[in-house]
């Protein structure tokens, strides 16, 4: 201990420099781990769509066709059946992510939550049964959306499995984008209008910031300022006498996205029996634009590669700086080593002092980024464990290099010959 203190006292500035280099090195390791994990999350979602074909099902009920179709008293039932069979097929994944604003009661918060905020429009407020309702951005999504996108919660829980079915008087579970944190909390009851129909909802969770999902209009729709509701399918065929809510819901249920390995012709063959059985032919299969998804996937891959190269380069530079300060330290401490040698120390033990110094410096230096991690990251255990595993591996590698370097250095210095004067 006295000898270590002695060595520290000899070269305080170099020790501080090597300490700073070690802290920077450890910080880089930590930053790399965090960024790699984040980029992995970001890449996983586009990767799910890689090599797959994405198709949009779209109805053809326009230009008078709608009126004609709905003149049939079974039209709601037909749409319901078609939608139900579409999502029940096991030949592909049926993905429903509908962007449809809803209205929230007594909502008096800033306009950023409005569906057209990006276009400079404020919150639209209207009275409904004596209460003010504000139109806010919202997505209605089915369970496949969670499977295809890595959506994380900061608190609460996701939708229960029975949330995807319509129950007349049941509360709708609601997930809120991260920007809602502090405005509402898990367990809050909200009144809302969905396609003008009144529902009660309960907040079950709040998403992490910057959560994104793929939609047909936007391959990376950010959910921060959105209210997320489950798409609620009808268990029984609804009657034609139901209002706009049911009609709009039926439309949204069948205008979903199909994600599959099937070619357009194969998909057409798969869908043929569905439209025959449900007696509904007024639909298109539109080959979705896969370019944005692929571009996104490539972009995230490139980002990851850049991150890797930048980290590796900086890492090598910092490791080089650290080894350089260590070699300076050895050279500056020659008189100390000579005194230790004639006082009964071995060359091996003197070399070991350098290796142990490396362990000690990096060990202490690693605590600084770890402390910062504990402060700024919620649930840091995963990062902490990964960080220390990487630090230990790097230290072992560096220790091997230091051992070789000091051995070579001491052989060149030849302290015993220097003692001869």
């Amino acid at each position: 201990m006295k000898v270590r203190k002695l060595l520290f006292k000899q070269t305080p500035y170099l020790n501080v420099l090597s300490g700073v280099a070690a802290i920077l090195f450890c910080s880089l390791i930590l930053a790399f781990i965090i960024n790699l994990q984040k980029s992995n999350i970001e890449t996983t979602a586009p990767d799910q769509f890689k090599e797959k074909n994405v198709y949009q099902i779209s109805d053809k009920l326009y230009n008078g066709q709608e009126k004609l179709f709905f003149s049939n008293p079974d039209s709601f039932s037909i749409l319901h059946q078609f939608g139900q069979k579409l999502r029940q097929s096991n030949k592909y994944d049926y993905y429903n992510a509908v962007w449809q604003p809803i209205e929230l009661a007594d909502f008096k918060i800033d306009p950023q939550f409005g569906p057209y905020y990006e276009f400079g429009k404020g919150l639209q407020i209207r009275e409904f049964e004596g209460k003010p309702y504000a139109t806010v951005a919202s997505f209605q999504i089915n369970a496949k959306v969670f499977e295809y996108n890595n959506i994380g919660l900061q608190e609460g829980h996701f939708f229960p499995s029975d949330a995807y079915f319509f129950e007349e008087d049941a509360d709708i579970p609601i997930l809120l984008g991260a920007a809602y944190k502090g405005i509402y909390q898990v367990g809050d009851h909200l009144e809302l209008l969905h396609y003008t129909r009144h529902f009660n909802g309960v907040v079950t969770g709040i998403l992490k910031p910057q959560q994104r999902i793929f939609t047909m209009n936007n391959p990376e729709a950010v959910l921060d300022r959105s209210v997320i509701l489950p798409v609620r399918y009808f268990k029984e065929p609804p009657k034609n006498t139901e209002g706009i809510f049911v009609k709009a819901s039926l439309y949204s249920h069948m205008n979903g996205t199909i994600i599959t390995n099937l070619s357009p012709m194969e998909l057409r063959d798969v869908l043929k029996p569905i439209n025959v059985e449900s007696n509904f032919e007024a639909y298109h299969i539109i080959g979705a634009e896969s370019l944005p998804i692929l571009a996104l996937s490539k972009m995230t891959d490139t980002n990851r590669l850049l991150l890797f190269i930048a980290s590796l380069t900086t890492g090598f530079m910092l490791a080089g700086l650290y080894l350089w300060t260590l070699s300076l330290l050895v050279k500056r401490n020659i008189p100390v080593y000579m005194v230790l040698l004639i006082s009964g120390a071995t060359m091996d033990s003197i070399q070991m002092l350098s290796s142990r110094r490396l362990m000690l410096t990096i060990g202490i230096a690693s605590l600084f980024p770890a402390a910062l991690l504990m402060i700024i990251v919620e649930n840091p255990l995963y990062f902490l464990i990964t960080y220390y595993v990487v630090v230990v591996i790097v230290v072992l590698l560096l220790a091997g290099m230091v051992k070789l370097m000091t051995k070579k250095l001491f052989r060149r210095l030849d302290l015993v010959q220097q003692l001869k004067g």
Partner: protein
Amino acid sequence: MRLVLENVKKEYKDTLLFQNVQLRVPPGEMVALQGRSGVGKSTLLNLIAGLEKPTSGEIQVNGISLSGKSMHELSSIRGQEIGYIAQNSPMIPKLTALENAKVPLWLVKQTPDEEAAAVQRLLQFGDLLGVAHLFEKRIEKLSGGEAQRIGILRALVRNPGLIVADEPTSALDDESAEQVIASFHHIRSQGVTIIVATHSAQIAAKCDKRYRITPSGLVSIP
């Protein structure tokens, strides 16, 4: 015998430095090794101190054979049995003279009694060498001669039975050299054996025996 050398041979990079070196030194004797520069005086002292290993032959210090010992074991023997004084005693900057002299004590665990005895020894020899008043001074403030005497003090701190001194007075003025020689006599009187490599006729004259190193062994100088 405090020191025994039997048929010691040393080659350095395939060149023979010396061979057939025979020496027997009893406790309390002071022996001078002389010879021209580069003949191997320092190397022979390094062999005795366990800093280097002989090519062949046997060295015993205080009855302990150095043959076949690892460098770690040799270091341990050096720490316990041998005090080494280099030509220009290396010193550790930023420490006081006393701290420099105490460095060998930091390499071993000591009981408070042992440490107190060591400090007492330092004070006693410090007086003798005329450096006790310099103990609290930073080593950089000392002259070459003063620093060399602190080096001698450091060699004595663990109470070794054998002192190996390589040209201990080459950097000193006459007065300082006299003080060093006087201190060697005092050390010797306490049963410590001293082997000193020197060009100085002044030191050699004060030694009990004198030898010249040649490639074929030690030659006694009358």
